[in-house]
């Protein structure tokens, strides 16, 4: 019987070596080590052995079994790895085929710029106020120190609905409306995004466009604070190395007033076509709130001061994205929109 076992082992090992697939090995295992397997068959004859022989044969049988089991496990492992390799190899795909998820949309560049401006100022503690686009002459002009027949009205040729009602020419009326609500409390810290309307239509003007207005009123607000807030804004909006430059200007509702330039986003201040070789780009108008505007809004200019600023969103978007014709922003061509 020991002979039998040895022969079996030899034969089995040879057969095992010939196995190429996992299934072959499993079939082999059943054939030799299964309930009706050859080794089992041999061991059935154990009963006929003498008690002396039994432990010896039993040990040998176990050795044969263990050895085969060991070899099977080893082979299975090798074969599995090989088969996995083959499968992975056969499953490789053309990764260059297009993706299948649906295309996402795009936000309009103007609304993106507005959101970005909002977020920068929210970070500085400003809240967002809005107001009607159809506005009373009073809020659009008079409450902002632009009485009837004031030459400054020429700066803003308006669309009128009635002699007293017009499409707002700037977001500044919301300054006056807000002051009416908040007086006499401070601080007032608002920005006002929105549509505005002027009678102009060419490559650099649109009869409808967007502005963001800012207003801060508190005790001890200084012109230097305006510079700081605007510098902070410019750096977040256009890059950490931005510089700003303030030039004296005139707005009826601020005094002192300033035009604010940023260093040219195209040439970084060296001078190029975009900035007419000056290195600077005019980006917004600003100033200290005129005492008369504070008075009309219900604040005492001896107790509080404030600053205000306003910028054209189209201008910011055009500079930020290199758009050279304002009309593109309102044509809504998908080939344009898709780029944002």
């Amino acid at each position, binding site marked *: 019987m020991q002979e039998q076992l040895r022969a079996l082992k030899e034969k089995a090992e040879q057969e095992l070596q010939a196995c190429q697939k996992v299934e072959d090995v499993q079939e082999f295992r059943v054939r030799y080590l299964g309930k009706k397997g050859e080794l089992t068959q041999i061991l059935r004859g154990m009963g006929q052995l003498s008690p002396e022989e039994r432990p010896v044969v039993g040990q040998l049988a176990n050795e044969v079994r263990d050895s085969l089991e060991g070899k099977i496990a080893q082979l299975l492992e090798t074969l599995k790895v090989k088969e996995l390799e083959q499968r992975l190899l056969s499953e490789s795909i053309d990764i260059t085929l297009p993706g299948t998820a649906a295309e996402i949309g795009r936000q309009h560049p103007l609304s993106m710029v507005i959101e970005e401006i909002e977020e920068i100022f929210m970070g500085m503690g400003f809240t*967002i106020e809005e107001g009607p686009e159809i506005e009373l002459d009073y809020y659009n002009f008079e409450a902002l120190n632009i009485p009837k027949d004031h030459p400054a009205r020429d700066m803003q040729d308006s669309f009128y609905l009635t002699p007293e009602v017009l*499409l707002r020419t700037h977001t500044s009326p919301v300054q006056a409306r807000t002051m009416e609500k908040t007086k006499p409390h401070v601080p007032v810290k608002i920005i006002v995004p929105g549509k505005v309307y002027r009678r102009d239509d060419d490559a650099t003007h649109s009869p409808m466009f967007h502005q963001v207005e800012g207003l801060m009123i508190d005790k001890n*607000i200084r012109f230097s604070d305006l510079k700081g807030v605007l510098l902070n804004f410019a750096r977040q909006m256009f890059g950490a190395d931005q510089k700003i430059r303030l030039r004296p200007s005139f707005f009826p509702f601020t005094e002192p007033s300033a035009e604010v330039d940023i260093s040219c986003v195209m040439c970084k201040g060296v001078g190029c076509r975009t900035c007419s070789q000056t290195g600077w780009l005019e980006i917004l108008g600003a100033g200290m709130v005129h*005492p008369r505007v504070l008075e009309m809004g219900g604040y005492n200019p001896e107790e509080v001061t404030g600053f205000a600023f306003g910028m054209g969103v189209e201008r910011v978007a055009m500079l930020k994205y290199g758009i050279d014709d304002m009309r593109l922003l309102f044509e*809504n061509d998908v080939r344009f929109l898709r780029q944002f």
Partner: protein
Amino acid sequence: MLVSWKWLKELVEIEKTPEELADLLTMSGVAVDGIIYPSIELRNLKVGLIEEISPHPNADKLLICRVDIGEGEKRTIVTGAQNVQAGHKVPVALPGAVLTGGKSIESAELRGIQSDGMLCSARELGMDEDKLSPEQKEGIYLLPDDVTVGADVVQVLNLDDLVLELDLTPNRADCLGMWNVAREVAALTGGKLRLPEVEGSTEEGTCAGMTRVEIQNEELCNRYVARIVKDVRIAPSPLWMQQRLMAAGVRPINNVVDVTNYVMMETGQPLHSFDYDRLRENRIVVRRAREGEEIVTLDGQRRQLNPEMLVIADAERPVALAGVMGGQETEVTEQTKTILLESASFNGPSIRRTSHALGLRSESSLRFEKTVDVQLVRWAADRAVQLLSQIGAGMAVDGCVDCYPGRPPQEEPLHFQAPKFYLAKSHLPKAFSWADNIDTPFAGAEQGLSGQQGERPPFAQEGEFEIKELSEEFPEEQMPQELWFRGRPVIRLRFRRVNEILGTKIKPVEMETILQALQITFLEKDREGWWVAPPSYRRDLEREVDLVEEIARLYSYERIPTTLPEGVTTQGQRNTEQQIRYRVRKNMVAQGLMEVINYSFINKARLERLGYPAGHPFGDMVVVKNPLSEEQAVMRTCLLPGLLDTVKRNLNKRNKNLRFFEVGKIFRAEGFPEQRKLPEEEWCLGAVATGKREKSWAYGAEEYDFYYLKGVIANLLTGLGYGAEDFALAAVQDYPGLHPGRAATILLKGRPIGVLGEVHPLVLEEFEIDQRVVTFSIDLPQLWADEEVSRKVLLVPVTKFPAISRDLAILVPEEITAAEVEKLIREQANEWLKEVRLFDLYRGQQIQENWKSLAFSLTWQAPDKTLTDEEVNIFHQKIEEALAARFGAGLRR
């Protein structure tokens, strides 16, 4: 304002280059938009005298000129021009000269005659033809007789001058006069002023006997000065004057007109000249026009007048539109012997209204609108008379008539220079209550102020001050009265206030230097500040804060520090409405739609193409009175026309698969303007989709149809926090612009919030769109009322017991809607039914006509146990029975 560099340099000493000065002006508030350089550097141009002209032997159209250019020998020059004669002085380009347009001149043979140069036209010299008379434009430019033969034409014609283009803000209208530009330059650079002296007139003298002036409407005209010049000889003005006018953008006409324009350019004060003899009774009445009066203005237009307009009249009729334009009947002509010169100050707003009403804007109205310096009015008249005499245009009649109703006790002298010392305290009127606050004048010595008591001559007399009534705009406790000095407001300026507003630490002595450079008069001072009066020509300086700006701009904005506000910290955030609009945008973008922004105003006809019935809110339009075009004539009452236009524009460019959304306002009159309230403005979300998601290698095409947008709405609402069950549609048959069989009201928790549908084929036809378009719109305020959207999410525990999924395919008649079937399924189930999903809709061969198969996938799950098949079967049994009973539905297996 165009500023001739040479002219400016004559008025003020300048050491800077034009570019440096331009930069300095820009950075201190008088923006220089650009510098106009001479177009080309002209060389080798001499003044030539034509001594002899003969016809060219070989060419009919050419002439041979013998020209003296001051070099002894005469030159032979061939010309084709017909306007030259012997004795004319002309510009001659010598060989080697380069003319405008790059033409270079050489000696050349012209039809057998050697030509040794060329006679030049104005264009060849680079002169602005718009500023020339027709005669000057044609042919050779003829020079006046008094120029020197052989002189450099560039010098004679000032062709090397350059011009600064000022872009003036409305407050700096003073810089519409060269004198004031020079003053600004002097203040900025310290350069010495060299303004021309003017001989002042008195009110005695001959003039007063020759004319009378009556101002009937003092509210519209607060000063009118008349002067008379006799023995007038109309002729061209001298070359230097013409050149300066051209540099300033004004076309020379004749000596009288040129002088009035020249003085306007010098001083900023517009003048007008009348033919004295044509004024009835030789007198002037300043009054409102009478109803029905008319005037023919200088441009030949007959104009209807009304009492809103101020006119200059003679004894009988209007002879000029005050401050806007003169009348033809009293125009100065070749025949004029005597002129009456007008220099006046008119009410700016009134001039503005008149010039707007008549659509007539002139250099004159432009200046009056912004209010001229009333104290300069007489000086300007005197200056004009002086120049007319100087250039031989006529003989001054001595004296003037000066009608000045609100004349202050004393006027500012011409070319006023503020004295460099303070005025004595005692000179401030006692009646003026501010004076009580003055404790120790000149106590500021420790602050480094330059005022020295010993140097103070008695400059201001008490009589120079004037106390005016309280101005209504100021709170009573702050300014009980206004103090005026020589017709200018006295302004309190506090040192501390300057630095408080600017955030600076400017020393009073620095402020003083700046204010002095601006010719501001110091009237008084105390520990805290000054009382000052600005010069008369700076009418924009009215309050303390105006002076703060003056200090800031001359100190330089660049030198003001950069700080951050020091107040309490506040929280920046969007309110609910703003958050919802923000989330709506993000949601739509995530779903693949592109945001568009359309104009708020649209063409009324395009809106009407939607075909709404009378009384429909779409027709409740707000109309723009003065639109730029019909395309922008009414405010949109819905977003659809703009979205369809966007679709059309894109289709034209071959973009055919389109999904757009817009978040914007719509406008409805709601009683405006009859009821005294503003129209309604409402935030709206609109979307359109057309075409399809194109078939790809991996999946089939997907139409952008009704169901596509329905899914978008469902995603939007769940994204905002609503439950799937909150959203439903209800069919509508008659929504304007929509396909009657494919339109629905969007219901959110049972209330209508908008509409979804396919655009009506007729509307598509109107918009010239030849593919189906679907659209929806949602009234956004309907969302911001709901709690769901601002609700904090509270997690419902995810059950750990497995779900059972069962399919159910049933046959129902065509008219039964999916929603009815689903409703019935839900009625028969209990809370274990988690989801009912329609996954197939089939009509076709195996099914009888007018029936359809609906296949649902039902998901069952219990929170507390694993469901068995038997438990679910019970419900399916019930559902099948109910469906059969209600709809006659059969199961499809």
